[in-house]
């Protein structure tokens, strides 16, 4: 299936803002994460911490992907300001 993948935060040091996966062979968020873990093993720590949004909704590892889905890979967020300490 075809997926549009968006990268945020520190993932943009390794990936571009968005990429088109033309022939993703898997069917779940867990499989997509395994795919990117293989593509970028040097970012290993990141993949354990990220959230995933499918079509602008938070998803889980078990969420089933469909052709044409937009999938955002979200490292821990850093919005706001005035860090607690």
């Amino acid at each position: 299936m075809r997926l549009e993948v968006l990268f945020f935060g520190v993932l943009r040091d390794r990936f571009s803002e968005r990429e088109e996966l033309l022939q993703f062979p898997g069917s779940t968020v867990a499989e997509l994460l395994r795919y990117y873990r293989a593509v970028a093993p040097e970012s290993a720590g990141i993949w354990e911490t990220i959230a995933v949004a499918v079509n602008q909704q938070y998803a889980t590892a078990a969420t089933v992907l469909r052709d044409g889905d937009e999938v955002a890979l979200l490292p821990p967020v850093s919005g706001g300001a005035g860090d607690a300490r």
Partner: protein
Amino acid sequence: MHVELTREVIDAEGVVRALKQGSDGAVTVFDGIVRDNTRGRQTQRLEYTALEPLALTEMRRLCEEAVERFGVRDVALVHRLGDLVVGETSVLIAVASAHRGVTFEACRWLIDTLKKTVPIYKREIFVDGAEWGHGEPFPPELVASR
């Protein structure tokens, strides 16, 4: 309930003025601003990016939860995106209610929770390099690999 992502300078006074009503006795405002340094490194500017539709949805959800959880009358939550210079407001939260205790509690909860669950990212451009802001971990239920 005023919830907004904007690329313009945040008009704090306008947001607070629009929020206030006759039955309010207290407004607590949190103004998060771009600091001139992080751990001693001199900051030139910040860039904020977001997964915008989800970020807005989450911001609205947080505001609704704040009203329900703390019983405050109304809240406003505005986050800036794009390029910000030192001294500019990146996030403005205002909470209005009849009594003050809950306005403090709701305001604090909103900024603390926003910084854990709303997909907004800060890139800090220093005079000598750049760095993505370190985030706090997601609540476990949002971690996809779990």
